[in-house]
């Protein structure tokens, strides 16, 4: 399966062509090249997935891990950094997810970004992103993963700051980069500890080495999780994701909803066999962090007024669900503990589809009304039928209504949580209810509710062009049927087949909760006047304000950085650096310059003197050696 290398070469090629020659071609041509290369990638991805799963299992019932291509890039004695392509069930699944969403976004952007300055640059960057993300999931070792991990960070930075004339976009891109980089420091230290004690960067190290490494393995894995938490916006490192919505909306759909932000989940899943066997005590903590993040983000999402912010917090919350599911897995035996692993991956898959759909739908709405604020919307169902229906499908899916895909994956997660601990199960069920509530609040405020007549008469919203609605329809279709994929047959914690069976009690509970929440949202937000919502907002003004301001977590970070780190640590260090270190080096520099001036006479361009120096040097060397 050497052709899988094309998955990296094609987008790299299109990035180079568009990046270097983009200014010499028409925007249309650039978009066409980018989209065409994505079509190629999608074909290769699907073909790979088909071949991989059709080839079937090994004799022991496990899907094989194939490494069709491996190149020893930097050998350091026994340790080496390799670059290659690795295929196993989760990487193949991710290939399908990434290429599908990326293709949709490429097509969608043809319409959405039309006429923007820097259209070619945009396509060059998303090609770069696609390459990096594909490289990340097919990485054969943790170091290659880290390299591509940073590359997705860079492309995310570039795309968030795409509108680089807007100060908010610049600030957001910097924030995203710095926060994730900060977390990646943990990842890097984790990798180095791992490499040092295990003697390899491979995902499948020698068991004896792992055992002898002892307590260093949980430490390394925890540090790696810190990196994953940064990328996947886990509390309290989530602060960059809502701001990242300053980027173009299709980018939010691709990077900040479907693919890059789940890299942290993917990382934990990739290291899952090690977590289970050598650091089982770390996993519950991942679950607790995930659960708290899910709760926190759901609470904030209930009161935001910017539709992309709502979706951003909903993404954070849903990634929390995936993390919880991984954290509550207690063994890789699929019959009990491994359920969470499968559920997490399943939810990653379905969530990618319906969340990309939501974001692209939001993009279509923003395209029509030229605003992110809900106050500019309302009653849009009359103007944008396709967007309306597809958005509704996605909302139903994320709320967990049968038979849409979200129902199936969320149900598995809830079942896994109940297996772990009833309290966790009920908490997650409640959060699922909140999810349904805030999504339908969003839905009603956009498509029903109070219409902003003034604005809509001045500028009548109209349905987006086919290039934008087509991806919506395709993603909606996937969302409708994806739940019926026998996911456990393909992806499970130890590679053997896992039979999904819907747990009737859990399913019933979650359905009831979801329906009740939707009903509540309908009651509160569906009409043009919203007395209940207003009363609640005034009655609990403090809570409402706190939630609207994201519980002041950003303020806390600002306080920590500005007041504590900058003032108490950085300022004294800066003083030391400016006066002592710089002073020392300035002195060195001055001495060097002085010396340089003083020995000028050596070079006086008299050949006689040169020969004398030659001889003197020879004799002096001889004398030194004789004495030595």
């Amino acid at each position: 399966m050497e052709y899988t290398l094309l998955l990296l070469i094609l987008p790299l090629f299109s990035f180079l062509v568009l990046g270097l020659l983009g200014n010499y071609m028409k925007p249309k041509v650039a978009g066409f090249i980018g989209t065409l290369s994505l079509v190629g990638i999608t074909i290769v991805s699907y073909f790979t997935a088909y071949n991989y799963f059709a080839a079937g299992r090994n004799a022991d019932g496990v899907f094989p891990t194939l490494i069709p291509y491996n190149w020893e890039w930097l050998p350091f004695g026994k340790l080496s950094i390799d670059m290659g392509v690795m295929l196993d069930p989760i990487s193949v699944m991710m290939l399908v997810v990434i290429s599908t969403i990326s293709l949709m976004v490429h097509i969608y952007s043809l319409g959405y970004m039309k006429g923007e300055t820097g259209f070619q640059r945009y396509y060059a960057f998303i090609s770069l992103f696609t390459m990096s993300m594909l490289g990340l999931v097919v990485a054969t070792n943790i170091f290659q993963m880290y390299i591509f991990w940073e590359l997705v960070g860079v492309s995310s930075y570039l795309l968030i700051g795409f509108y680089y004339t807007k100060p908010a976009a610049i600030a957001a891109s910097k924030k995203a980069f710095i926060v994730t980089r900060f977390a990646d420091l943990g990842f890097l230290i984790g990798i180095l500890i791992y490499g040092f004690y295990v003697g390899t960067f491979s995902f499948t190290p020698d068991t004896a080495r792992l055992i002898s490494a002892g307590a260093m393995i949980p430490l390394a894995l925890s540090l790696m999780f810190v990196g994953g938490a940064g990328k996947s916006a886990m509390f309290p490192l989530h602060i960059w994701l809502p701001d990242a919505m300053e980027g173009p909306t299709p980018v939010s759909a691709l990077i900040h909803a479907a693919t890059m932000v789940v890299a942290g989940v993917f990382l934990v899943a990739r290291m899952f066999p090690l977590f289970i066997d050598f650091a089982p005590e770390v996993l519950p903590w991942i679950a607790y962090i995930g659960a708290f993040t899910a709760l926190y983000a759901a609470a904030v999402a209930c009161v935001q007024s910017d539709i992309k912010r709502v979706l951003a917090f909903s993404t954070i919350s849903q990634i929390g669900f995936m993390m919880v599911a991984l954290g509550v897995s207690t063994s890789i035996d699929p019959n009990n503990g491994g359920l969470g692993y499968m559920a997490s991956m399943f939810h990653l898959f379905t969530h990618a589809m319906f969340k990309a759909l939501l974001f692209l739908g939001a993009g279509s709405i923003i395209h029509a009304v030229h605003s992110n604020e809900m106050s500019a919307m309302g009653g849009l169902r009359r103007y944008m039928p396709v967007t309306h229906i597809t958005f509704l499908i996605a909302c139903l899916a994320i709320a967990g209504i049968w038979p849409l895909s979200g129902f199936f994956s969320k149900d598995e997660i809830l079942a896994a949580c109940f297996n772990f601990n009833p309290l966790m199960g009920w908490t997650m069920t409640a959060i699922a209810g909140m999810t349904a509530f805030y999504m339908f609040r969003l839905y009603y405020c956009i498509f029903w509710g109070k219409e902003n007549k003034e604005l809509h008469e001045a500028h009548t919203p109209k349905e987006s062009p086919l290039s934008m609605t087509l991806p919506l329809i395709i993603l909606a279709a996937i969302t409708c049927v994806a739940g019926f994929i026998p996911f456990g047959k393909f992806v499970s914690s130890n590679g053997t087949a896992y039979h999904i069976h819907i747990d009737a009690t859990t399913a019933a509970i979650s359905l009831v909760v979801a329906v009740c929440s939707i009903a509540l949202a309908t009651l509160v937000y569906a009409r043009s006047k919203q007395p209940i919502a207003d009363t609640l907002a005034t009655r609990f003004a403090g809570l409402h304000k706190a939630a609207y301001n994201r519980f002041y977590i950003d303020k806390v970070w600002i306080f920590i950085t500005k007041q504590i780190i900058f003032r108490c640590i950085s300022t004294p260090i800066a003083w030391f650096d400016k006066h002592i270190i710089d002073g020392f080096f300035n002195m060195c520099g001055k001495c060097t310059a002085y010396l340089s001036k003083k020995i000028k006479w050596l070079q006086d361009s008299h050949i006689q003197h040169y020969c004398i120096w030659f001889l003197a040097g020879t004799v002096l060397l001889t004398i030194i050696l004789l004495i030595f």
Partner: protein
Amino acid sequence: MENLTQFFQMRQELGLIVVFLIMFICDLLLPENHRKLMHPIACILLVVQMLVTIVPTDINLFGGMYHSTPIASALKTILSFGTLLAFLQCTDWLNREDSKHKIGEFYSLSLSTLIGMYFMISANHFLLFFLGLELATVPMACLIAFDKYKEHSGEAAAKFILYALFSSGIFLYGVSLLYGAVGSLYFDDIAPLLHGCELQILAMVFIFAGLAFKLSLVPFHLWTADTYQGAPTVVGGMLSAVSKGAAAFALMTILVKVFGNMVELSSTMLSIIIVVTITVGNLFAIRQQNMKRFMAFSSISQAGYILLAMLGNPTQGTASLVYYIVVYIVANMAVFGIINAIEQKTGRVLREDYKGLYATNPKLALVMTLALFSLAGIPPFAGFFSKFLVFAAAFNQGFYLVVLLALLNTVISLYYYLLVVKAMFIDSSENPIPTFKSNWFMRISLLLSLGGILAFGLVSCLYQTFNNLLIN
């Protein structure tokens, strides 16, 4: 008959001699107005010579007088490559009115020095070694004097040849002392008989000094700046890159093969020379305004870094030495190529002339910057890896202090390399170098160099290849 078959086994040297002869015949037969054809002919022939003999082989001939190890044969290809870069850069200069009639001479002379270097590298006997050394040096003096109507060119050549004579004298004196001590000139015969007595120390220092002249190590370096400044820029490039590469390898061969028993003494000697060379080279480079003089001192300090490889054990040291040479050749030839291009178009060679170069000739400025970054050893360019490997080679043998001092010196070198970058990118000038287009030869040469600077660092297999050549 036997000797003749042996003779034919020297494929690389013979190939070069054939190229030389063809160029010589071209020079005789081509009419005046078709002389320009010699540029492509020379380049193509050299490429063919490289490709035909690119597979490294182990050849031992003439009773052990000539021994071309696989790594030596790889180095020969590298030197040919460096010469090729110089050939590509020389067209504008040679097509000028005052040198048009002697295009053929340039090629004949530079090919002869290359042949000399080839013999120097694969000699296993001091007589052959000396012949190679002289064959490499004498035509080089002619090349330096090529622009003889420019007064500096003549002066530079005079200094070079006088200095070369002096150092040859010292070298021969050393060889004769060695012969007196052991009664043989074969490297293999001498080695086991050495044990480090006073006479042998004297011989080693003298032989070292003779070669140190070619490498321009301090204090045997004083000719360098004057010569580089006066010589045609292309020749300066060859002197600093190709000739230095050959001399460094030859020196390492002698130190390992002949003076292997005196490794402690030679290491002490090298340590002293390394520290002095790098420091003095750097201190002088800071002050230079003329780009050619600047590169002369930069090449002196680079020679010090090359010497670090000789402190390593024979395998690691030689591999890192050859790797350093390749990387150094591409970066240095790129810098000299740009200096040459600008000099040919505008006649300007001062650093302040380079102010604002990025605004008028962005591509040249970019290539120059990358080449200087590589020379300074900034990752991820090739120069970082080559420096790293020579440091590692010396470090593994326990020369911590030398490595530390060399590392400190990289800071100084970074400073003066960045001075040039600053001039090109940040400083503005009222009278910048006008925008101009280079010819295709120059472009190819710069592209090849640029490719080398970028690729040799990332493609780690190159060092591995050298290492494997040494181990097998």
